[in-house]
């Protein structure tokens, strides 16, 4: 028999990076008693190394715990963790759709951030009950009253009775748990209706195949049920279902309306189980899929090449393995004259790109060369054809192009008032279109801009942080394609075009960018036995040039006292350095040169 729906609470936590989401999750799990303090690993929810290091959640983690309330009754809490970054907005929205309520954690010393605000609005759109929680009240600079006023003012929700807690020290956590019971509605739904389950995440396990995380909205699923994935049409038999114990899966007999759990149905590819899709009973399907599903598409592309050409098959295997768990990651083989065999990879955004890159390097021990990230440009050719360009190298000849379009986003930047000036300058430099500014309170404002995505994906975050001393936060969403005067900028090293360094840029910024790239490359390319010109060109027109002077002297005058070992080490170092170079014509280019040109902001 099913669980009493009135004793279930499904909720998630919304918080800005560093505001204490994972710590609070830890405390909740601790307080609900399924894990003893000794078993607690710090921050049990974020289980990827990178997540732990960066303090962000990339893959949603979910946990089911049992809480005995002050009234003595036992409640089932399903805490659905949400990714914390703009790149994963869609995943956030699906996680929210699986809940009835959300805890909004705000740092008592910081106040609301742009990212948080965006997610709160999204939660409100999903009709979630929002419980504000003021965290870090133990810090001397905590100002809970200001933050409460800000929440009421900016978001427009009641916050006077918001629990004031310290997740770190475990202060007032019980108050949060009681409010969850009192304020968040229990799930509804008919256990006997046709099955309708929302996929909010999935995971690939090498033994069990795809493990689908879902929220049962209507009906009941059991072992042996023939399920159907409504968007892909895939049909499969359920081999195991269960719930999420902290850090492990607990199999059970059935999942019914209102519950959160996992389904294993012998699927081998996470692409079959897309986040947001609806699972139904193949024999007794529901009438409509759940609303809101969309296929996530990569927004940012870049080339990834193994530093050691022989590792190409290893890179392919590694990407395939990552893709098993990351349906948004796309890749296809490509070849570069400069870098050899590699892959053009598609990502949700720059953070997603960086996370994948780091995982490839760390978990798979690969040394990578990454080309400049590019967005998808839409090229309208004179013959009426429209192509979507993900690799600048493939840009057609300008004579064949009628016009080009580039993706724009609408961006909200939250910033303390003293940095409004520098941030506006930054947005202007990045071709931003100013839409307006609102004051959230005396000291903080939201700037609204429309920005070309390709201006954001290079080093916008870094520039934003450095020009606001870390105080600015950014949220953006894709808005649409806009016609734009774009040109392809090529880099020639020793008069040879280096395909991996070509990129597309707005005509107005081409000169500046070309000049900076040449300067940067001059720093990175070691001197050779001959002079090396570095040029930036649009078509056949050279717009910038630098020269790496020929090496005149590299000799160890003294080799003394018979210490040959030291001498050999010196030569080995030299040879080792050479190994990490890419040969372009007769010029050796260090791999980091390809990456260094991505960071050109000189403020």
């Amino acid at each position, binding site marked *: 028999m099913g669980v009493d729906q009135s004793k279930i609470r499904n909720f998630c936590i919304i918080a800005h990076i560093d505001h204490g989401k994972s710590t609070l999750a830890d405390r909740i799990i601790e307080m609900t008693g399924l894990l003893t303090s000794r078993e607690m690993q710090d921050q049990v929810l974020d289980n990827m190394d990178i997540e732990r290091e960066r303090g962000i959640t990339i893959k949603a983690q979910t946990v089911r715990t049992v809480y005995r309330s002050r009234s003595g009754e036992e409640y089932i809490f399903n805490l659905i963790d949400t990714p914390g970054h703009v790149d994963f907005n869609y995943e956030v929205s699906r996680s929210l759709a699986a809940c009835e309520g959300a805890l909004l954690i705000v740092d008592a010393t910081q106040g609301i951030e742009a990212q948080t605000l965006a997610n709160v609005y999204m939660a409100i759109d999903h009709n979630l009950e929002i419980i504000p929680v003021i965290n870090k009240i133990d810090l001397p600079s905590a100002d809970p009253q200001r933050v409460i006023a800000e929440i009421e003012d900016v978001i427009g929700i009641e916050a006077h009775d918001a629990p004031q807690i310290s997740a770190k020290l475990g202060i007032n956590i019980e108050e949060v748990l009681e409010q969850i019971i009192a304020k968040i509605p229990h799930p509804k739904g008919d256990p006997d209706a046709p099955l309708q389950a929302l996929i909010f995440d999935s995971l690939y396990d090498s033994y069990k195949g795809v493990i689908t995380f879902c929220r049962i909205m209507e009906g009941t699923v059991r072992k042996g049920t023939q399920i159907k994935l409504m968007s892909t049409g895939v049909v499969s038999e359920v081999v195991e279902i269960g719930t999420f114990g902290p850090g492990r899966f607990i199999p059970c007999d059935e999942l019914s309306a209102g519950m959160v759990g996992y389904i294993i149905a012998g699927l081998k590819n996470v692409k079959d189980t897309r986040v947001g899709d609806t699972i139904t009973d193949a024999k007794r399907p529901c009438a409509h899929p759940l609303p809101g599903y969309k296929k996530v598409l990569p927004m940012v592309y870049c080339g990834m090449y193994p530093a050691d050409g022989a590792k190409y098959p290893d890179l392919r295997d590694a990407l395939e393995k990552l893709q098993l768990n990351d349906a948004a990651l796309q890749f296809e083989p490509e070849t570069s004259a400069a870098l050899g065999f590699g892959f053009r990879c598609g990502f949700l955004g720059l953070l997603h790109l960086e996370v994948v890159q780091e995982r490839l390097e760390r978990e798979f021990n690969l040394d990578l060369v990454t080309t400049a990230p590019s967005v998808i440009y839409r090229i309208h050719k004179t013959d009426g054809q429209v192509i979507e360009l993900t690799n600048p190298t493939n840009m057609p000849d300008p004579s064949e192009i009628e016009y080009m379009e580039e993706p724009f986003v609408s961006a909200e930047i939250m910033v303390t008032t003293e940095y409004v000036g520098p941030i506006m300058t930054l947005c202007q430099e990045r071709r931003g279109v100013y839409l307006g500014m609102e004051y959230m309170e005396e000291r903080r404002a939201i700037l609204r801009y429309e920005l070309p995505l390709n201006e954001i994906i290079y080093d916008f975050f870094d520039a934003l942080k450095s020009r606001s001393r870390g105080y600015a936060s950014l949220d953006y969403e894709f808005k649409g394609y806009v016609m734009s005067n774009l040109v392809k900028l090529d880099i020639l090293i020793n008069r040879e075009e280096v395909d991996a360094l070509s990129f597309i840029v707005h005509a107005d910024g081409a000169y500046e960018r070309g000049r900076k790239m040449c300067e940067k490359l001059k720093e990175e390319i070691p001197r050779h*036995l001959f002079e090396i010109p570095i040029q930036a060109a649009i078509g056949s027109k050279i717009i910038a040039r630098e020269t790496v002077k020929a090496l005149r*002297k590299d000799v160890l005058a003294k080799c003394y*006292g018979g210490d040959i070992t030291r001498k050999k080490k010196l030569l080995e170092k030299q040879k080792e350095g050479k190994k990490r170079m890419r040969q372009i014509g007769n010029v050796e280019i260090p791999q980091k040169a390809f990456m260094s040109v991505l960071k050109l902001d000189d403020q």
Partner: protein
Amino acid sequence: MKNKGMNNANNNQRTWKKDLRLYVHVPFCVKKCDYCDFLSGPSDEEGIESYFEALYKEVGSYEGRTGDYKVSTVFIGGGTPSCVRSEYIARLLEELKRVFEFSSGDGSLEPEITIEANPGTVDKDKLADYRKAGINRLSFGLQSTHDRELRLLGRIHTYREFVENYRLARELGFGNINIDLMSALPGQELSSWEETLGRVTELGPEHISAYSLIIEEGTPFYERYGPEGKQKDELISEDLDRLIYKRTREILEKYGYIRYEISNYARPGYECRHNMAYWEGALYLGFGLGAASFIENTRFRNTDSLEEYIKAINYNDRSHKNIMSTNKPEHKNEGLLHDAYGIRRDIIQLSKKDLIEEFMFLGLRMTRGVDRLEFKKRFGVSMDEIYGNILNRLEKENLVITCGGKVRLTDYGIDVSNRILSEFLLDKC
């Protein structure tokens, strides 16, 4: 018959002794120069004495294990070996001669015994003592004939003092003298260097070492002229550095000095045999702090902690004496490879690949180059089998030249020799 054969073999062993070179490090100086990164520093008399006591013990520990070798060169380097009292040096040579057999001089060359001496640290008595102790080669660290440049380098002497020392040495009969010079000093102009060369050739030493200054990490010069240094702009340009190098050779050759190694010039017959050993892959044994050795295809160096060196020798010496008497035959088998005091570090047994690489990158430092036949004889494969492709390419780029069965660096090749020598390191063999 059988017995006779055995005897012959023994006789052969006795007559065919391996050529061995000895290096002794004296890590003391009056004051460390501003550019110097060698193991050296000032010390009080007590420190010097305890060091030499340890040094003699180290030499002594080889007693009974040196039968297969004959010593042809000794080099006492530093630091400034001439800054300590000459008794230490005399006793050192006595010890060496007691423990090692030196080549006699009849039928073969007389052993070359060099000591490094800095102007301002020697006098007539000291030099006479050196002569008496058997030292026949002096290497003077002059660096420059301009007092302004000497001050810049942090040297303690003037040019005048050097000239006095030099004349004294000649008067006392030293017939083989080297003068160390240093070019590419911050702010140096070609004319000042040419003046230095002019004055030195006038004095007419047998050997001249002309190094260009290297800014080494951890020195006061690095603070001033290193990548972060405020005065790095005063360093001379690479073009001037190379011009100086070119002029050095021209001037010195005019006066009869032949460049035989990247930085070394000598009158014919006066090449430093000890230094050549390093480039030729000959055997050498080092004594004292940080001294490097190459014996039985094995490279190692002594610890470079002065405290550790002295402690290890004094501590182990007590137990050592007992062990020595019972274990002697065993150590004898080990020959020079036995580390009596546990002071050796970085012990590396060279593979064939290592030996091949060293043959090339050390041999190419000598202007006569590396010999193809010698290569084949040593390693059983031809040089082209291993390095054919590389040599072809380097030859095409005018970096090496092949002639008369030898391969050597071109003048331009010397300028960028690190680049070239690193090409001779092999991935695998």
